[in-house]
């Protein structure tokens, strides 16, 4: 989610900090073209959550971290026939065609989720092995 006070200056500053491939292609000057950015086709990026880098190796036994992906840009589905669109995305797209100024295009929706097990110590040094279901998105509407 985004907070309401995230101004364009902050946005430009934040983006400089993240060397994501699609963002570096965009000019980081004050004339950041939001429309151009939004019209970029949806791209897949990977994020690695490292429990080690978070300084949690004293209580998380395994895994060292986990990888997941997120995407940004304009979603291409369901117009491309090979994509897996959710029912909601199809309806959203249809309504967008009818009311393009009022109803936005659909956002990505997870279509395949996977769980991860996490092994950790609690405060009393008991060991817990917990299955976190639906933790990692393996596929979304357009990837």
């Amino acid at each position, binding site marked *: 989610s985004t907070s309401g006070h995230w101004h364009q200056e902050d946005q430009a500053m934040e983006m400089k900090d*993240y060397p994501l491939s699609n963002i570096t292609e965009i000019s980081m000057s004050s004339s950041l073209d939001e429309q151009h950015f939004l019209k970029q086709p949806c791209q897949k990026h*990977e994020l*690695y959550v490292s429990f080690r880098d*978070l300084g949690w190796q004293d209580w998380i036994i395994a895994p*060292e971290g986990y990888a997941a992906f997120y995407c940004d840009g304009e979603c291409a589905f369901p117009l491309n026939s090979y994509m897996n669109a959710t029912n909601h995305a199809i309806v959203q797209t249809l309504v967008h065609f009818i009311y393009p100024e009022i109803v936005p295009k659909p956002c990505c929706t997870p279509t395949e989720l996977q769980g991860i097990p996490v092994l950790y*110590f609690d*405060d009393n040094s008991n060991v*817990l*092995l*917990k299955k976190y279901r639906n933790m990692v998105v393996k596929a979304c509407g357009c990837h």
Partner: protein
Amino acid sequence: SDPILEHGIHSSFAQRKLRGRERREIQKEILSVLGLSHRPRPHLHEKDTSAPMFMIDLYNLMNVQDEQMFSFFKHVHTDDEPSLVGHQETYLLADADLVMSFANLFENDTEVCHQCYRKELRFDLVDIPVGDQLTAAELRIYKDQIPYNETYQLSVYQVMEAYTNKLLKLDTQIICGSDFGWLTLDVTETSNAWVVNPKYSLALQLMVETMGNKSIQPRFVGLVGQSGPQEKQPFIVAFFKSKTIHLRRAR
């Protein structure tokens, strides 16, 4: 041993050192995703004691794909050293959402008390999850080989604290002197007490008898207690199934 790091996929991730406040924010977010209210601060975090070793075995088993599980299993049981994980745990694991181990906190000293024919073990169960259903609980105790190849009966009892000296028989096993490895005793029946009293301290008594009903000290048949090596300490493992879907709290 992380396959992601080994195969260099990690290098494709955007990397940036997090600043102090940013780091704390991300820690808070991920703790929330993990359903934890705060960062656990264990006073002991040795991984080479029996309970963490068993849990690491379970974790590794969970990461093996279903089709590979059987071959992995065979491999585990052909090792010279007896494995901690058995067939029973594999099936319980498949159905569980949470597995929790409890280390033994107290044991009566049979080396001092020569008249004590019962080994008493105590487990602190204050941290059991509220609302989850306990599907199975096992007491796991290591048995060393002894030179006498006789047959014994090992029984485990729950000490009923509400009634002085009243014991509830939970499970019995026939063991041979030459046996060695982990013994698994079913203590699921004690779960009634766990549910009624969340701040429960579970006391169990182990009793060993010859086939002629003569009581003998558990250590004489090779049962390892608190004076034994760290990787052979008794512990309880409990399997839980979540009844509710985890919802993240709004902040």
